[in-house]
């Protein structure tokens, strides 16, 4: 039994990982066919994985409603909103428009989801201003450099800044294309090497945390 619970998954990971790492270098039609089919399968499997995420959310709020923890009424609102959206969605056959006419599903999307999602993220603008006022201090040489770069970029990237202080445009372009590029490139190379190392560890069975689910016997 332990073979099926531990060794088999690790073996599958190794075979899949090694095969599709080498596939990149093999232009043979059979190799191209293999990746075509498996990539298609992954799309469907990802759909099932999304169900997992959605079900977890269901469960978290179901517990809140069941135990009537403080604020459980809001979880009820969440469920109601979810249910209404699903029902309207199925009645609209998943379409936001039919023959150019907006459906109920499209209405919900345009007038509830879009404004809610947009506003949730736009509220950060206020907090960034408040945080900048309270915390953005030139306490050291490094902080001063950061502050100076931020001010130059903020001026250089808007028409008013370009109009009042024209050199901020050119300096911003140089900062982004040279200095910023250098740093981002170094971070990208470092992170990518880490990602490759992690992928190798997963394929070789050294890293196993992704397996989860169930206990070894």
């Amino acid at each position, binding site marked *: 039994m332990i073979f099926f619970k531990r060794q088999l998954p690790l073996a599958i990971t190794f075979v899949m990982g090694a095969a599709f790492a080498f596939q990149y270098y093999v232009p043979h039609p059979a190799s191209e066919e293999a990746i075509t089919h498996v990539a298609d399968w992954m799309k469907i499997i990802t759909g099932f994985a999304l169900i997992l995420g959605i079900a977890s959310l269901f469960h978290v709020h179901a517990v809140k409603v069941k135990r009537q923890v403080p604020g459980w009424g809001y979880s009820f609102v969440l469920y109601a909103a979810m249910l209404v959206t699903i029902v309207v969605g199925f009645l609209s056959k998943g*379409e936001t428009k039919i023959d150019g006419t907006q459906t109920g599903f499209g209405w919900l999307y345009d007038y509830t989801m879009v404004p809610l999602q947009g506003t949730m993220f736009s509220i950060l603008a206020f907090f960034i201003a408040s945080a900048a006022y309270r915390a953005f201090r030139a306490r050291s040489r490094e902080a001063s450099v950061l502050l100076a770069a931020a001010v130059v970029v903020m001026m250089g990237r808007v028409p008013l800044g370009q109009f009042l202080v024209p050199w901020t445009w050119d300096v911003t372009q140089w900062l982004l294309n040279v200095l910023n590029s250098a740093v981002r490139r170094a971070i990208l190379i470092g992170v990518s090497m880490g990602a490759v190392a992690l992928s190798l560890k997963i394929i070789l069975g050294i890293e196993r945390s992704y397996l989860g689910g169930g206990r070894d016997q």
Partner: protein
Amino acid sequence: MIGIDRRIIFLLIGFATLLPLLKPFGLPIKVSPEVRAVYEYIEALPERSVFLLSFDFDPSSKPELEPQATALLRHAFRKNLRVIGMTHWLTGTGLADGVFSKVAAEMGKERGKDYVFLGWAPGTGALIISMGQDLYKAFPSDYSKNPTRGMPVLVGVRTLRDVNYLVSLAAGGAGIEMWYVFGKDKYRFEMGGGSTGVIAPGLYPFLRSGQINGLIGGLQGAAEYETLIRQKGTATAGMDAQSATHFVIIILVLLCNVFYFLLRDQKGRSA
């Protein structure tokens, strides 16, 4: 003064955003080389070339990326390109279809003949590989449930290798980088990028190395593109408010430091 109620700062930002929207002052917009590069590539494409626009964002990035999408689509339709749209972001599907329908109607373009919106499919990297191997297997039907095989707009297009230019409008991970790593690296189409301001600085290494030929960054980038196509839209309208808010932030930061140094001097003298 440093301990000022933050709601006063919120009010300042609110007014700095609202007043220029109500009374714009209209300053000229300077075009950067990276935005011009995307424009010039599309401008040079022959009629009926295949242009793939990937709407890799959701409503949270709508104010920045929708104007970019609108400007790019207007340009592409004006050049009579065949436009293929799709998205990697599930919650962005309705938004993307809305933009397509609106601009296509404005430019008198026909779905299925001049453009197709494929919609969303899961998989991100796997989806790109799938499109690179066989577009019709990746998307057997479009967003409106019409079969993709045999569609006039997709004649001669079998895989990503048949795409002449791709632009990914990205708000995060599943976007430009992913399109390059899983797409352009193997399937060798040319690509450019549009992004939110948050991720734009991180894309400059790709721009420098030629992995993307151009980059439209944030609302400013969208305004620059609108200037190039000589059709002002929501991005240009928002630039005055952008200027005002930036200056408010700069003044707040400078004030914060003035008070900080004054306080520090006072403490130093009293010690």
